[in-house]
């Protein structure tokens, strides 16, 4: 062990002017180093225009306050706010997270302050920024979805994402997302109460054929689809023989799920004629481009935020550079551009 001088007291600097230039060690993406090419980044999702196609995924970004410490939220195409329920929820007991090969499992269980608190305290904050605000809702009954849609459309959000696919709650949640008739019923009720605000339904990957649910939701009047939610998974500590998560199972996200997301976006884009917000493991521009080529109009970044708060901006810039290298004038020209083998 070395001398005391290697341990440090908080103290105020007592002089010593900063001399010479130092290397920039900031992790923030630097515009000056990599000038962005002139590619139009704007996209449209169910009539909602966005300055760029990169949204942050619900549940990974809270209500934006924390990441606003790192950058202006106006740099994002949109923000899917933390999932709301009609009444406040405390969520599940911890541990709620487990690291897995190129992924994470979570079992948060929709902890949130309730839709009224969101409208009163969080929405005015989010509205300060030049970005699209997408509220995400979960209900125990179709009626609850209806009440929340009414409140949120009156409060003024840009879009409502109807979550019928949360794997971490007992009532409602994923049950609505795995049965086509229930998914359709929730969609109809949401549409009937959302007024002019577009309704996007978030689909579960935990089904045999995701196109069956997508078609049911489309016929029920959904304006857009978002996919995929997390895939149910489990991790066990081999020494204690206990699952890491207190709920035993949770939802898998991160790069491990990207190929599943790309496949499902591709299948759904062929099955229905609705715009798609693609998500699942996006960590760089190329990942976003894959989802767009598969059929997505825009993409969401989620788990990548935990390693890198700047991930959404890096995805945005990487996507723009990729489009420029391919000689595109608009990022939106990537959408649906996959050339499948016959």
């Amino acid at each position: 062990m070395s001398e005391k001088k290697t341990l440090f007291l908080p103290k105020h600097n007592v002089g010593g002017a900063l001399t010479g230039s130092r290397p920039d060690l900031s992790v923030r993406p630097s515009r000056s180093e990599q000038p962005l090419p002139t590619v139009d980044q704007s996209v449209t999702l169910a009539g909602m225009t966005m300055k760029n196609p990169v949204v942050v995924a619900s549940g990974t970004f809270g209500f934006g306050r924390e990441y606003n410490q790192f950058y202006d939220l106006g740099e994002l195409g949109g923000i899917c706010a933390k999932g709301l329920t009609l009444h406040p929820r405390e969520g599940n007991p911890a541990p709620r997270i487990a690291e897995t090969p190129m992924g994470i499992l979570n079992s948060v269980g929709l902890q949130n302050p309730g839709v009224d608190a969101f409208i009163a305290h969080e929405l005015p904050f989010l509205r300060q920024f030049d970005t699209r605000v997408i509220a995400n809702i979960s209900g125990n009954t179709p009626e609850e979805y209806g009440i929340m849609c009414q409140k949120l459309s009156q409060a003024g959000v840009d879009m409502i994402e109807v979550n019928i696919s949360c794997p971490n709650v007992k009532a409602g949640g994923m049950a609505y997302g795995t049965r086509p008739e229930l998914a359709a019923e929730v969609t109809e009720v949401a549409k009937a109460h959302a007024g002019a605000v577009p309704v996007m339904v978030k689909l579960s990957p935990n089904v045999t054929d995701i196109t069956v649910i997508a078609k049911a939701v489309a016929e029920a009047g959904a304006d857009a689809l978002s996919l995929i939610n997390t895939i149910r998974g489990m991790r066990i500590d081999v020494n204690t023989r206990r699952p890491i998560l207190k709920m035993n199972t949770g939802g898998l996200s991160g790069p491990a799920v990207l190929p599943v997301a790309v496949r499902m976006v591709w299948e759904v884009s062929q099955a229905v004629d609705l715009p798609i917000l693609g998500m699942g493991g996006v960590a760089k521009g190329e990942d976003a481009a894959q989802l767009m080529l598969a059929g997505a109009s825009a993409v969401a970044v989620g788990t990548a935020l935990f390693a890198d708060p700047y991930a959404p901006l890096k995805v945005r810039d990487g996507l723009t550079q990729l489009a420029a290298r391919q000689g595109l004038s608009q990022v939106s020209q990537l959408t649906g551009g996959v050339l499948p083998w016959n």
Partner: protein
Amino acid sequence: MKVERKCKIISKEWLNPDAVFLVLEVGDMVRTSFRAPGQFVHIKCGDGLLLRRPISVCSCMEDKPDDLLSIIFEVRGEGTEWLANRPVGHSVDVLGLAGNGFSMKPEGRYLLVGGGIGVPPMMGCAQYSGGKSTAIVGFRSKDKAILLPQLEDSCAKVLIATDDGSLGYHGFVDALVRQELAEDSHYDAVLACGPKLMLRNVAKAAEEFGVPCQVSMEERMGCGVGACLVCACDMADGSRKHVCKDGPVFDSKEVDWDV
């Protein structure tokens, strides 16, 4: 205002076969985000792991051009092993300073209680209170003991306990906390960091003597900034707070110790 930046390792030392001591140059991180001892840094440990590792700050200081910060951590898995193997001169991606520290004043006098790898943040508390505090530290055995000479230098008194009796008192720190508070209960507060069972017992002892107690809690963490809500800590009032944003330090009476 938290920052994320590449921070150079300028000193590294193995304190025992499991514990590593690192000093980092952290830019203006201390100047911009230091609140109190007991905060943590969230460190990216290689490219293959998606989650950062939260590590308590041992001590830190403002300096120019770079603030300095020290951490001590135990190698417990893939991530901490990667970090332990970084050589001096290499940089690591650090997000900080995160969380709220202990609610304390430089003029205060505290009973600092640390267990195992929970001892390092007590070093920062000892320095912050200017040598007036008392430290009670516990380890599994003598060969796991860390920071003893430094605590001796920074505290009015240091008491040691080991689980196997190989150094100091044979037993747990809560017995020493009771013994100390029975002699002298005029501490401004008991501040503790260590395993949850230890914290629970220390909180109970502090309560018996009517001394306020703050505890630093640990939980599996995601974003580290309060957005993802995974690091839930059950509160006595039935609510769930979050270790990264509301903590890691809580008033011991806020915490639900029965879960």
